């Protein structure tokens, strides 16, 4: 048999050996390629295979008030993650978490949309302690779930500082798309309003990275678990000009049933001592996602508790504007500080071809500027308006920023409504204005709506030398004058004398504003509004300081539909300044503050007889 002749066998054996060598050699070559030449690539892949990077949010900076009291700090909270895994198993994990974390169906859908390959999914930024305990207890049933302790925002005073401070919440998709937040990632908490928003970049800090080792099913394993590769850097602390006890005090004295705003500024530098809007909201409710029911309640409430009236609400300034008219007239030199208006108030006046009434049909007689302010005499201010003239009124009002924002360091502020020139009437009302428009403007009516903050800024100028810095919430920033009224010392004294007339014996606001230790001066106003003609908005704008001294606090109170500036707004203002100044000078706080309260409580006020 030829085929199995030893010679033929040897030939085939050599051939076969060659084939075997070729096959084994080819395999060895491929292993050499994979294990030696490309090994570093695969090592990298192996790492990314088993290591998951989890961003660690930095503790947010603490927010302090002007006295160093903590307004907002952090307490331990629990975040729940589903670690990166194939989409299906992440979906399953979500559904299993649903009952435990009490997630709504829409929320689950949102979360499902966020599932990305190789990225851990943040399910709950602030899980209940009960839910966390349940998850830890049954950790075997929940592979791929990671619970991380992370700092959680707490607002110590809750509702009292809600509007000024804002709140933190999970970053929204549309926010992520903006250039400001390019460094941010889904699931991060960011300031949504107020100070938290304004100083977001300061407060946020720098995220850290935690390395987690997981197995193929996404379960946490190994010694790597929880090692923080890059520790987070806490956000910077923020010190505010706000006076926390004062905010709490205002929150406690502002009538629950009323809506409105209180703004208190330090005339020395424009520091915002208080910025309160009622009704308010509790920022703690928003931390870790607000509950749907509460959100619906807040957003559908006709009282608009989410609306910061202090900086967004615009109201006809009415009589508190008369100080602006007076200031503009003095600045323009069309009236002397002590000059008596030649035409007396007889309950009305025929001026610029029309008959205009004063609020007092009995008339005020001959008045100088201080008297006109004290009596809020319309007839006097009509005449002053004519002396100023419409164009000069518009120019001056514009220069004083009544159609602009004050520039407070808050993310939201509405500019006032005030005509910059005559075209305003053409644009808005469709007619060219006559000179007579100045009459309405002079008494704070007409096309003129201002925020409480703006009015407070204006009164700051009267508490100073005529210059007005931009209101600042952040402590330590240099005051920058945004505008200035050229007022002589005498002119300022006369204006204050007029305001003193409002709050001294005989003045309308006397009983509501008279305080034992401090002199309160100011102006009341009743802002007509289209919503309810019977019930005007109640204004009080004024300032206070030690008897015989310079004003140390400017305060503006607005109470929507409060009817009476002197009876509704003025007492709130007086109680606000009393609280602030008593604390400043170390005088014990008393809840019976104003003269009216003394009488109501049956407590004698011997100091009031002076």
């Amino acid at each position, binding site marked *: *048999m*030829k*085929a*199995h002749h*030893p010679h*033929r*066998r*040897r030939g*085939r*054996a050599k*051939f*076969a*050996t060659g*084939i*075997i*060598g070729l*096959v*084994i050699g*080819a*395999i*060895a070559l*491929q*292993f*050499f390629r*994979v*294990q*030696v030449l*490309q*090994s570093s*690539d*695969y*090592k990298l*892949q*192996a790492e990314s*295979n*088993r290591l998951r990077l989890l961003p660690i949010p930095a503790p947010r900076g603490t927010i302090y008030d002007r006295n160093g009291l903590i307004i907002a700090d952090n307490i331990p909270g629990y975040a729940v993650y589903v670690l990166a895994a*194939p989409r299906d198993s992440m979906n399953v994990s979500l559904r299993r978490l649903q009952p435990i974390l009490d997630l709504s169906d829409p929320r689950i859908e949102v979360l499902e949309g966020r599932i990305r390959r190789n990225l851990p999914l943040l399910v709950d930024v602030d899980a209940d302690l009960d839910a966390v305990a349940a998850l830890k207890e049954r950790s075997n049933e929940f592979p791929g779930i990671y619970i991380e302790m992370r700092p959680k925002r707490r607002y110590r005073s809750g509702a009292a500082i809600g509007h000024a401070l804002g709140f933190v919440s999970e970053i929204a998709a549309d926010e992520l798309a903006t250039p400001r937040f390019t460094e941010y990632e889904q699931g991060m908490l960011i300031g949504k309003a107020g100070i938290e928003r304004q100083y977001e970049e300061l407060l946020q800090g720098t995220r850290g990275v935690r390395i987690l*080792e*997981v*197995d*193929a*099913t996404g*379960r946490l*394993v*190994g010694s790597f678990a929880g090692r923080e590769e890059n520790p987070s850097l806490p956000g910077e602390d923020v010190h505010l000009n706000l006076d926390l006890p004062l905010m709490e005090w205002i929150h406690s004295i502002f009538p629950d049933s009323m809506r409105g705003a209180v703004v208190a500024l330090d005339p020395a530098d424009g520091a915002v001592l208080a910025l309160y809007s009622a009704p308010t909201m509790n920022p703690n409710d928003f931390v870790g996602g607000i509950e749907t029911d509460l959100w619906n309640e807040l957003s559908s409430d006709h009282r608009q508790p989410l609306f910061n009236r202090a900086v967004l609400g615009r109201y006809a300034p009415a009589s508190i504007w008369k100080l602006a008219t007076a200031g503009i007239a003095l600045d323009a030199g069309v009236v002397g500080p002590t000059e008596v208006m030649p035409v007396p108030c007889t309950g009305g006046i025929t001026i610029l071809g029309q008959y205009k009434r004063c609020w007092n049909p009995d008339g005020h007689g001959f008045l100088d500027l201080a008297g006109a302010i004290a009596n809020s005499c319309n007839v006097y201010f009509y005449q002053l308006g004519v002396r100023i003239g419409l164009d000069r009124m518009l120019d001056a009002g514009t220069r004083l920023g009544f159609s602009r924002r004050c520039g407070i360091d808050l993310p939201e502020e509405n500019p006032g409504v005030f005509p910059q020139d005559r075209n305003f009437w053409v644009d808005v009302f469709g007619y060219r204005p006559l000179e007579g428009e100045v009459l309405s403007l002079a008494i704070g009516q007409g096309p003129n709506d201002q925020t409480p903050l703006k009015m407070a800024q204006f009164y700051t100028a009267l508490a100073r030398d005529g210059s007005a810095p931009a209101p600042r919430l952040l402590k330590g920033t240099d005051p920058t004058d945004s505008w200035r009224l050229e007022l002589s010392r005498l002119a300022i004294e006369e204006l204050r004398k007029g305001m003193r007339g409002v709050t001294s014996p005989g003045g309308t606001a006397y009983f509501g504003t008279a305080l034992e230790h401090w002199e309160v001066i100011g102006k009341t106003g009743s802002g007509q509004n289209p919503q309810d003609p019977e019930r005007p908005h109640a204004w009080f704008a004024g300032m206070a300081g030690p008897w015989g001294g310079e004003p140390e606090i400017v305060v503006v109170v607005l109470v929507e539909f409060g009817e009476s500036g002197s009876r509704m707004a003025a007492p709130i203002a007086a109680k606000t300044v009393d609280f602030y100044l008593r604390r400043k000078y170390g005088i014990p706080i008393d809840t019976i503050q104003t003269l009216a309260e003394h009488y109501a409580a049956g407590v004698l006020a011997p100091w009031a007889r002076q």
Partner: protein
Amino acid sequence: MVRRLIRYWAIDTQLVGLVLLLTLFGVAMIYSAGVLNDPSPVTTGAWMRQLVWLAIALVAFTLVSRIPLRWFEWVTMPGYVFAVIMLAATKVIGTGAGTAAGVESFIDLGFVRFQPAEFAKLATILALARYLGSRADEPATLKDLVSPAVIAGLPLVLVLLQPDLGSALAFIGILFAVLFWAGTAPWLLLLLASPGVALILSFNTLIWSGYFVVLVIFLYMYRYRLYLVESVSVFIANLAAGTIAVPLWNSLAAYQQNRILVFLDPSVDPRGAGYQLIQSMVAIGSGGLTGKGFTLGTQKRLDFLPEQHTDFIYAVIGEELGFIGTLLTLITFALILYRLVSMAEQAEDPFAGLVIFGILGTWLVHIFVNIGMTVGMVPITGIPLPFVSYGGTFLLMSWVAVAVAARVAHEEP
């Protein structure tokens, strides 16, 4: 004394020594494959079960290696018929098992589950060796290859129906290895393989066209050594394979194509495209030159590796022992195969040499496909690595094959 005892037991100390070394190495790697961060009962105790199987295999080796070669020749035909019946029976009473749960390749005997395909390989080797060894001349024409092709093709089709692509490939390896040792001219073997080549190459028209031109030239060159009917049938078979494949494949929807891929081998792609291959290559590649250390492979520990104690055991070797480990293992395999070649070369008895080459053919296919798939050289196919992968029947039958080979060496002077 001891050496003589060992020699007496092992018969061929070189072959048996290498194989025993490899098997013990395999047990160690199976042990390592069970060392997981989150241990599973299937893999943790596997090394002990493998040790038990090794004991059984060694007993079988001892017994089988005492059986004269002639006896094998006598039982060849009944054994082959029995194997085919068993394979057919798995279609009716077969069950899936372990990591091959989707393939009905096991017969449950109550106390043990048995894979008829492993037995059928040995039976087919013997049948082919018997048939070709008893022929006066080497196969010289395609017609001479028909009978061997049928002998190997019958069990091949049956395992393909299970469906077990890996074992089917092993039968092809057996057929070609035995035909080669029977003295079949390599060009004839190429012609035999040509329709299969045409089928694979047909997915690229240009390559297929070039291939077809080469084939026609080839047929023309060998026109005097082939019957016309043979040339024509090779031509037609190639043409048919090449032309039918593409339209057939394209007429299927993507999910149907996937279904066919899954039909061919259900273990492919259970979790997204190429997951197993990627994980296997990451494990092997990250092992680097020296590996991460025995039992310390991170990809394995964290369960990223698929089928790590059976089909992908080589990825564990690659990850933990590095290129040095894989190279040494490959060299061991090469030495074993080379030893088989030497034994066949020295065998005067055609039957003996053919049996050894049949065994060599199986192992070469298993080694190439199993190791090759872990580094992306061949598509992923459920096929174990001889002596190393976990699996009782396979280990037992591999050792029986060793026993047969050793017996051959014993009977040759």
